[in-house]
């Protein structure tokens, strides 16, 4: 217990002092995971809508792939992204391995199926007759889709939270494709692992507490938006 208490105190101290190293790591974590999440939303929501509402051959297969992707282990993603980005790999010329961009790519691959799969589920829970009703009220194709997204804002915000939650907390991919380089690719989770390995448990606990705190604040904000709109 003493150790955990020390960790809390350390966390408090680091935040109050505005420790530059910690601030850099926090900033990078938020930036990398934020960009990865937003990208996965930009692609995942349209794809999820198409799969959820559309009828096309191979739809079942695509949906199964997406659902499998929702449980993709970050280390597996890290491994394959590494292979692709290695200097001798297919995308080696881009020289992206051990850069923040590499982490963004890996985290995008983790969040994308999560967002897509939850979008599919959200779209499928809308009564198909409601779509007919909207068309009957004179909705154009774009208006119809926009209205459906509005109707599903509760599960859609859950998709945002799940996507962000998956990437801000993962370590396998960040470590493998980022390399945990101080001041460049070190993020909250990789820093926590490193400090634990070094035996600096108080710093590790402080980092964990801060990571949890950030995740809580972001989800709190999203939940507030979600519940304000929904329960009314």
């Amino acid at each position, binding site marked *: 217990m003493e150790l955990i208490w020390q960790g809390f105190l350390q966390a408090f101290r680091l935040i109050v002092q505005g420790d530059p190293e910690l601030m850099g790591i926090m900033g990078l974590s938020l930036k990398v995971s934020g960009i990865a999440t937003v990208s996965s939303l930009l692609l995942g929501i349209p794809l999820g809508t198409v799969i959820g509402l559309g009828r096309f051959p191979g739809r079942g297969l695509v949906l199964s792939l997406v659902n499998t992707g929702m449980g993709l282990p970050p280390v597996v993603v890290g491994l394959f992204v590494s292979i692709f980005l290695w200097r001798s790999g297919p995308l080696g010329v881009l020289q992206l391995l051990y850069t923040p961009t590499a982490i963004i790519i890996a985290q995008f691959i983790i969040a994308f199926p999560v967002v897509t799969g939850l979008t599919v589920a959200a779209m499928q829970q809308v*009564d198909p*007759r*409601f779509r*007919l*009703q*909207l*068309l*009957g*009220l*004179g*909705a*154009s*194709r774009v*208006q119809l889709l926009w*209205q459906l997204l*509005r*109707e599903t804002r509760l599960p859609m915000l859950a998709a945002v939270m799940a996507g962000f939650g998956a990437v801000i907390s993962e370590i396998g991919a960040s470590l493998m494709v980022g390399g945990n380089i101080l001041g460049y690719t070190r993020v909250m989770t990789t820093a926590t692992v490193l400090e634990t390995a070094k035996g600096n448990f108080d710093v590790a606990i402080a980092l964990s507490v801060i990571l949890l705190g950030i995740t809580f604040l972001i989800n709190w904000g999203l939940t507030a938006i979600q519940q304000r709109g*929904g329960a*009314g």
Partner: protein
Amino acid sequence: MSDDVLAVSGLIVTYQNRTVLEVEHLAVRSQEILTIVGPNGAGKSTLLRVLALLQAPTRGEVTFQGKPVVHHPRHLLPLRRKMATVFQAPLLSDTSVHGNVALGLRFRGVPPREIDRRVRHWLDRMGIGHLADRPARTLSGGEAQRISLARAFVLEPEILFLDEPFAALDSPTRERLLADLEAVLHESGITAVFVTHELVEALRLARRVGVMMEGRILQVGSVDDVFNRPVSEAVASFVGMETILPGRVVAEHGGLAQVELPQGQMIEIVCELPPGVHVVLCVPPDEVIIASRDMLSQQTSARNQLPGLVAKVTPLGSLHRITVDCGFPIIATVTRQSALDLKLEPGREVVATFKASSLHVIRRGDIDGGDVSK
């Protein structure tokens, strides 16, 4: 023809090689209320979706305001925006009552102030003005359906489609809503197509009625035509003439024909069909008088007096439905009081009496001819 707002011809809809709808021709005239009645599963909703341009027919042509409809999103959108549809389930958006009624106007890009004015007018007209700011999905079934109606009327459509809008409501709620809808429809002079399996609703709202069964429209005509002169046995049985007797004309004299039933009884009817013609007789239940056997000797102008035994008594509120077994069942409705006075109960000997002029006669040939032409 120029008076038709909407017409379909040669319409066929198939689902996986099964034909669910086959309508040779149907037109909706300007400012009329056309009701399509038929049992569940008759294809009424499918027909309505095709008419409302929400579903493309497998084959056939839809004509709206004199022009053939091209089933392509770009062409359909402006046409759909001249229409409005109310479904059985209110299908409300997860927003306020006001927001729901505003939906169609927002799709049409109407300025917000104009939207607000029209929405408030129709909310008041449907008696839900005080609920404007409430979340729509927290309201009762009747209120929800009022939102759905207001949401359609606010669009001031050229044609309004109503797909069993009251089917899910309890009967006092349905009654009030029906009365309000009736008033709005008649004062606005709107063209409407109303689909229902409830004859009472059809009778109240319609000027013209189409009877639909198994994907086909069997008869279209005035309420009087369809209910009192059904063209076929199927129509007759659906519109509530519950006693339907097949028979053959054996003699005719001076407009009065004798029809022999398969069981051997003779029925006299007012008609001028030659002997040998096969007919179906429809006896409206409220035209049948039930009397006890000892009253048989009393003078009556009714030509047909059939002795029988009461087989079944079904109470229906203030009326009782009596099934009399005369070798074939005859159904009569009598008041509760006279059922008590006559001590009507299963096994009681009675006489079922009805006038020769109270029957409706359908020529068998008409039925065969009508159906075999396919």
